[in-house]
């Protein structure tokens, strides 16, 4: 009986060992969730229009491995992004940081909208001044009324 128990115990130990080896990704769902949310914001350098989360490129897999390691070490999301930027530059971020060299990039669309609205206002005002209100003469009024009656 004792022997059987020991055997069972040994089996159980093997089973858990095997299970651990088979699923290293599911180790910590919290870290995996963070890994995905961070890497969706990062560009894969090899296939530049894919995110790091979605890419099957070799380098992307290596980088995900690195990011996972950093997260396990307790690094914050910002520190992980800093790790990537210090190696690959701002280009890896799908959301470029706001800094002097990117001010034009961020403000550009708003500048264009404001400029467009300003041009529109100036144009409408000027046209308003140029088109004069000319009152109808009695003769013209009569003709207009006649035309309107005909329509009915």
């Amino acid at each position, binding site marked *: 009986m004792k022997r059987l128990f020991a055997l069972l115990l040994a089996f159980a130990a093997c089973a858990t060992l095997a299970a651990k080896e088979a699923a290293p990704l599911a180790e910590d769902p919290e870290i995996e969730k963070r890994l995905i949310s961070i890497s969706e914001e990062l560009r894969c350098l090899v296939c530049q229009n894919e995110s790091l989360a979605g890419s099957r490129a070799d*380098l992307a897999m*290596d980088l995900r491995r690195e990011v996972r390691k950093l997260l396990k070490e307790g690094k914050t999301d910002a520190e992980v992004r800093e790790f990537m930027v*210090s*190696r*690959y530059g701002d280009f890896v971020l799908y959301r470029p940081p706001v800094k002097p060299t990117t001010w034009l990039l961020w403000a550009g669309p708003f500048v264009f909208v404001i400029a467009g609205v300003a041009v529109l206002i100036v144009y409408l005002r000027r046209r308003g001044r140029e088109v004069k209100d000319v009152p109808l003469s009695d003769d013209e009024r009569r003709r207009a009324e006649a035309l309107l009656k005909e329509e009915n």
Partner: protein
Amino acid sequence: MKKFLLPLALFVVLVGFLAVGLNRNPREVPSPLVGKPAPAFRLTQLAEPGKEFSPADMQGKVWVLNVWASWCVSCREEHPLLVEFARAGVAPLIGLDYKDQRGDALRWLKQFGNPYDFSAFDADGRVGIDYGVYGVPETYVIDKAGVIRHKHIGPVTVEALEKTIIPLINELKRS
């Protein structure tokens, strides 16, 4: 006539932007590492696994680090140029064999010639990540103080060597 002037000016500006923007190579990502100290590492050498290499060993020398791999097709393209560069003896050329198998890499060097003083062996690509490698081959020029002064992405060309890399090395050697 005058009312066409503004749209024409805008059009010319737009064409200018597109002409510059569309002729750029999107593969060439400016490296934030240029002007920064070369990341430290300690790796075994490719041919002699018993020996190690660290960039600190090159302190006081201007040297070139070339990232290559036996599986990398464009590395074959630049290889004859590297052999020539090494023969000219402009600066030490050290390889970083990136995500490779020792056997494959050594066979590759035997087949195409070995321009490297030696190669460091980066089996899992961890050092490559520190150097911001994303497409082999990549070439770094490192100065006497261990600062990266230039990074060339993709196979080196005759033009890049003669116009940029060699003049830069000579200038760094003088300073």
